[in-house]
């Protein structure tokens, strides 16, 4: 159920992300080349997301559809069955397949700004209000006992918009990309949120 994977919405996203980056560009360099490069990195990420969603849909179609009044047992079985299929299909997946190195660099740069200053300190407080030291791993189930960290709006505004099947989350200081239907971590950016002292600089 990708809502906006058409070329048209992709183009809008490209423009929006370009504008978003422009407003966040603290270096104040009128560097269209750099902005275009950023937009290109984000667009490439969305292409990889589209490819993953195609896989997700193919795998989900192999499972019996959940009835509208599904029981918790049916929901759980469906989720775990999908997780097994996803993990099997991505058994060779490695860190950086989706969050490629160039995108990671952008994310680190953005997060350094987003988590600096008084508002950044506030955002850090909300993200870490129930901290759990967890090191994310690809193709692993999101730990059942770890609460979901709040995602600040300004972070979600900057990150490329995801289809309904996927979400960004912070786990400790790490940014993860999660398949919410399968409850599986697909990729991560380690230490996306910089240490408080580094962000304050």
């Amino acid at each position: 159920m990708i809502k906006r994977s058409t070329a048209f919405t992709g183009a809008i996203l490209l423009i929006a992300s370009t504008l978003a980056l422009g407003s966040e560009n603290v270096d104040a360099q009128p560097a269209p080349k750099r902005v275009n490069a950023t937009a290109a990195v984000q667009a490439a990420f969305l292409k990889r997301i589209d490819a993953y969603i195609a896989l997700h849909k193919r795998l989900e179609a192999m499972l019996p559809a959940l009835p509208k009044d599904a029981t918790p047992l049916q929901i759980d079985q469906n989720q775990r069955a999908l997780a097994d299929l996803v993990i099997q299909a991505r058994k060779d997946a490695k860190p950086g397949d989706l969050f490629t190195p160039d995108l990671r660099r952008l994310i680190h740069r953005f997060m350094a700004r987003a988590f600096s200053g008084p508002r950044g300190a506030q955002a850090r407080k909300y993200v870490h209000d129930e901290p759990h030291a967890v090191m994310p791993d690809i193709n692993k189930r999101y730990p059942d006992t770890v609460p979901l960290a709040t995602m600040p709006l300004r972070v979600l505004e900057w990150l490329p918009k995801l289809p309904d099947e996927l979400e960004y989350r912070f786990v400790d200081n790490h940014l993860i990309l999660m398949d919410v239907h399968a409850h599986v971590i697909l990729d991560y950016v380690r230490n996306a949120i910089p240490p408080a002292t580094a962000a304050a600089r």
Partner: protein
Amino acid sequence: MGWLRASAISRVLGCAMLIVALGHFALAAQQGATTTVAGLSLPTRRDSLKFAVFGDFGDGTQREFDTVAQLVKAHTVFPFEIVPLTGDNLYGSERPQDFAKKFEQPFKPLLDAGVKFYGALGNHDAREQRYYKLFNMDGKLYYSYKAPKQSVRFFALETGYMDPEQVKWIEDQLKSSSDDWKVAYFHHPLYSSGKTHGSDLDLRRVLEPLFIKYNVSVVFQGHDHLYERILPQNGIYYWVIGSGGRFREADLDKASPITAKGYDADNAFLLAEIDGDMMTFNAVSRRGQVVDSGTIRRRAAK
């Protein structure tokens, strides 16, 4: 002499029995106060909307069960039809048996009576809860619904993932609603005097202007494990109702300037009744005592 001694002894015994009996009576009266909902002051009018608000509860502990038992008792005298949930509906693992133990079993009398629960997701809730039929979320992370009575619409938000799409959705929904009462509820509080979490200023910056602009009258929130009624903020009444099962004793900042009434001595939930322009409310503790009550008027449309 022997008779006199026996008579005196019997008198002493009689007095002792009377004292014991009175003691039992006093104890029974005391226990009675802790096992029934005492002093509810709700109009319970025929065509009013009666509802309860419950939050931060599903941990499967005796505290949760005791608090839910009070909610069940309250329903016998105050037959609420719906229960908006302010999130953290299930703590820890969410296996099928957890839904049974932490929700279906304790709430069974209410479910059997046809009471409908409407979930909002907290940070401890898996996203799949939106598919759970008894939370009536219809597969959505955020949604709105019209109350079965009165001109009231509820808006359930997912404050853990407030993305631009959801911000646009809530604005559109509030804008298009012509209901007299607009009631929003969600997990992370815009206003709270809880020492553990407190107010989420980032969320406040985003949501409060919309609530003001589109005439929201009441907001229910959770996350901090206590009960708090906030002094009206820009004409809007906010509550923190986050001690349905989880509880943090003495977590309320007593020096907070925004508290109208706080209760952090035990678990609590809210009962409320909307009739026309007025909403009457009672907050009830795990021991069945009314710890806060009052009546408010809805915000007038501009």
